[in-house]
């Protein structure tokens, strides 16, 4: 009798243990593999909205991708190019204008929560003010991390005609950016092999698989 109870308890424990293990397995990755990493950002910037819906070119903001190793996170004044005026979503702004029209008053500035966060970081009371000298930068959380001994150069890939999506995935459909690919060495090397074999967009490229291409 006693033994049976113990056995039942053990069985139930095993069952739940397996469930936990199975759910863990679904997220199981090799160590250092950050695929799927999508950290919360200080400002919920939507790539889906900007790059997808509005169709802004990647390099409009990430200007350095063409010229430098790092694609670069746009400086805050790039945001302010538009968001000096665009303080909230179009619908809300339209509504406010309509409302103001109805009430026969000047439309008020409506600021969305996310943009308020942007202005707060910059220390702006009013988006139309110039950016103060002691403005802080936004502490974006880096999504795509490569180990320190890997030297990836955006320049080379942009010059070769590799699309951003090849490595970063469909960013234009991501609300919050996540690491789409594994970014493992094998993944890099395979792409280099394929590119050398098949070329990129029809033109031949030499994507070396020498160690020193990335490690030095």
């Amino acid at each position, binding site marked *: 009798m006693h033994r049976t109870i113990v056995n039942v308890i053990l069985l139930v424990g095993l069952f739940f243990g397996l469930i936990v293990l199975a759910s863990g397995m679904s997220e199981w990755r090799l160590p250092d593999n950050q695929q799927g990493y999508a950290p919360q950002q200080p400002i919920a910037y939507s790539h889906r909205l900007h790059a997808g819906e509005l169709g802004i070119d990647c390099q409009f903001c990430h200007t350095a991708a*063409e010229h430098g190793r790092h694609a670069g996170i746009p400086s805050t004044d790039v945001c302010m190019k538009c968001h000096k005026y665009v303080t909230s979503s179009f619908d809300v702004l339209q509504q406010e204008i309509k409302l103001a029209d109805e009430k026969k008053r000047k439309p008020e500035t409506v600021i969305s929560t996310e943009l308020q966060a942007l202005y707060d970081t910059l220390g702006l009371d009013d988006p139309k003010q110039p950016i103060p000298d002691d403005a802080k930068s936004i502490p974006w959380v880096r999504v795509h*991390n490569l180990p320190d*001994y890997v030297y990836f150069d955006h320049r080379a890939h942009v010059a070769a005609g590799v699309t951003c999506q090849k490595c970063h995935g469909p960013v234009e459909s991501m609300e919050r950016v996540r690491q789409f690919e594994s970014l493992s060495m094998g993944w890099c090397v395979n792409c280099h092999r394929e590119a050398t074999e098949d070329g990129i967009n029809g033109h031949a490229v030499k994507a070396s698989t020498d160690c020193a291409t990335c490690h030095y």
Partner: protein
Amino acid sequence: MRSKHRPTVRRATIERPLMNNESHNKYWKSLAERDGSRSDNGVNPQDGSPFAISRRRFLEAAGFTLSLATMQGCGRTPTETALPFVQQPEGVIPGRSQTYATTCAGCTAGCGLLVKVRDGRPLKMEGMPEHPLSHGGLCAIGQALPLGLYDSHRLQHPLKDGESAEWEGVDQLISQQLSDIESGGEAVRFVTSTVTSPTLQSSIDNFLERFTDARHITFDAVSSSAILDAHEQTHGSRVLPRYRLDAAQVIVSFGADFLGTWISPVEFTSAWRTRRVPTVEHPEMSYHVQLEGRLSLTGSNADRRLRLAPDEYGLVLSHLYAKLAQRAGESLDQDDLGTAPIADDELTALADRLWAARGESVVLCDSQDVAVQVLVNGINHRLENYGKTVDIERPSRQRQGNDGDVLELIDELNAGKVAALFVAGTDLTHNLPDRDGLAEAIGKVGLVVSFSERLDDVSSLAGFVCPDHHPLESWSDAEPVDGVIGLSQPLLAPLGDTRSVVESLARWSGNDDSAYDILRANWEQSIFPRLESEESSPFVRFWDQSLHDGYVEVAPTTEAVGEFQADAIKPIGDSPATDDCLSLYSKVGLTDSRHAHNPWLQELPDPVTKVTWDNYVCVSPAKASELGLSDGDVVRVESTGTDVGLELPVLIQPGQHDRVLAIALGYGVKGTDRFADVGPQWLEARPTVEPGQFVGKNAAGLIEPHEGTLHYSRGDVSITKTGRRHELASTQEHHSLEVPARVAPPGAEKRDVVQETSLTAFAEDPTSGTPEVHHFGDVQLWPEDHPKTGHAWGMSIDLNACTGCSACVIACQSENNVPVVGKDEVRRQREMHWIRLDRYYSGEGDDVDVSHQPMMCQHCDNAPCETVCPVLATVHSEEGLNEQAYNRCVGTRYCANNCPYKVRRFNWFEYPHGDELQNLALNPDVTVRSRGVMEKCSMCVQRIEEGKIEAGRLGEPLADGQVQTACQQSCPAQAIVFGDMNDPESAIAKALEGPRRYGVLEEFNFRPTVSYLRMVRNRDADESGDHHDHDAEGGDHV
């Protein structure tokens, strides 16, 4: 932002004065710059890490700097934040470096400098190829500047009586005292090292103007005062000639180490090199004779080297003068001169050579005896060298020290006549004899102000220390040679609350101008008018162009040079001395005490002795056996009859004169006890500096003031063995190409690692000097599976051009993040330098030949290291490079064992990277290797990759010379050529075609891609034979 199209560098100038903190600068290169004016961070300069805050700001602003945030609770790896600029500065691309032109201030030679600045950090110093003096070379000191910049021991604040103070208060107190002195008419003395900066000079002049008794005294720690004094006697003008070695066919140097430390080594090396490389078409080269007591770097490169004690220079010069006079048709009585210590036929041959090369020869001498220098002038005059190889029309300003003034100052100080003493750019008390007496005398001075960057010896005596900027932080200029003016611009905002001397002087004269304003004003007033240009352009254009170029050539300030005064020449007929003769010298890479705080330079092996981290007494092998000394025995060297002396370990130096004891100056510097724990700390580790000691000992106490100059050699010294030992840290144990006789296989006593031939043999047969070995040519054991169809990188090193100056070692260290390991690790033969400058002695008896051979990874096509690596961490690239993937290495050291050149370096420990400020000098393009990983020369693959990627971006093929390795770029002698061997038009392809090419150990078919060009000595074939009958183990100091 302007940029002129140049093949190799992109330059930009900073148009806005960075110093102007109060201005409206919206764009800042760094937060440190932005906050540069903040003076309230209240950090004690003695504090271990005073940069904690400013570094943080600095980093934050450095474009795309990523800082490690805290571990996220559920994250797998630490979260990294990426902080963008708030407003993107124009032209700044994260991760890309920009090159700025400026002037090197490592010494007074004033070489042109290109500084790579990345993300707001000056990272790498490069020579400026267009510079009229340095021609693209840069010495070890110049290469090591970043470490001086990112030095946490630099003063962060002005000090008042040793306490941290505010500029405002300091200025007030000093101004007050100065006005008292001014009204009292008391004496003001301003001591500087040689001032090459016209702006600083005029600032000092302006500052001193208001005092009735004010003098500016120039004191050089290693002075050439006698040369200037001699010219005052012979030419009526106190000038230092500019020696044009590129015009000299015969160079005779009496002790002048012009390739190593004397006046302007980079300029001289570059000029010397122009006539040292014979080709098949022109099998000619200059003839270089060195007469010296110790074995200097220059002597090691001479065609003929004669051992001569410094106190005999006068006698030999007199004989030489007499012989030349004879040839000129004058008869001069030689008999009362006494016997020359050099064989007469030797001297006659020398005189013949010189006479034949009249106007194309030069005699140099480093003696501090004015009479000797007058003789030198006489000889140069007689050889018609003035105006040709010895230029006093456009003289050098690189050494202006006036020892007479200094000695006078000491008297004044002792007499208590000085009311205010300003010391800039030199550690006065450290570099003069009788330090304690001088310190006491300085104690009598009411106002002592030091401008030192660090708390050096004289600063510790000063009431006020007003720290100057690091040269890379300040606006300045330099006129090393009359008419060649370099401009220095700041590459980053000052890291500490320091102020340039110019600005300090202006403040105390009641002027609020910034250094930039003063400099620009001075250029507008004094330099711009000297511009020899037909078309008149506005000053702004001239200024912008000068700033962009980094230097400008203008008309010399012509000083009337008088007629040659032949009657000044008085032959010196002393009979040869018999006592020991002390020779104080300065060491390549350190010179005087200025760079003693630079661990790269402290760990740089002396090019000749290969010793690091110490100074020592060099004695000849004969002397050593006479006294029963071996390397590391501590001896006491004492000036006879006084208690002035010091105890140092002994180093047996082949090729040294038996009477000469040589000790390096510039050691025992205050504050160098900081290096006690510079290396890895573990159970058996011995500290680099013993507690309570400094690196080496200060030998300045033995400098002898004599007849108005400071003599670095003296005859009245004695040497005694103490019985103690101090193990020197040398990077080379065995010093000869010859293997020890006891174990030498018959017929193979000498190894053909360095191949050499004589000029006459070379003229007859350009391939002469090729050893008779089994040479398998290019026969391959297995079919060629690896054709190199793209690039095939290769390098050649011309042993004839290479002087062994070791600039490449530091260039490589700076470029490739090579760690400093400390004295104990060097003792254990574990230095990490990727380039080893092998130095071999050869030859019979006491006169030795020296060969220098830079040895780094040879990138063998059949690399023995690659085969043995179990994990494929070192493999061959398609472009012929031997790659080392640090992250794959597990550290079996098998590859290092199997490397026939022993050029692989293992990370025995996690080398300290605790100094966060110093870490800013690390090159972000190169991985910092961790413990347990093998590393070695990568042929600067990061530069190759950058070159290829940039060429790809621009859609252009990679041009020859677009990618330069760090060592190649730095080499003052342009001995190193690097490039694509598959490009038939490339410099490397052409260099490899020559008859002098050989590969080290190529008979083993390792197929090294680094080739050497055989050394040719300007000798007759019979003079430089193989020295197989080398007696016993003469050259073997194991």
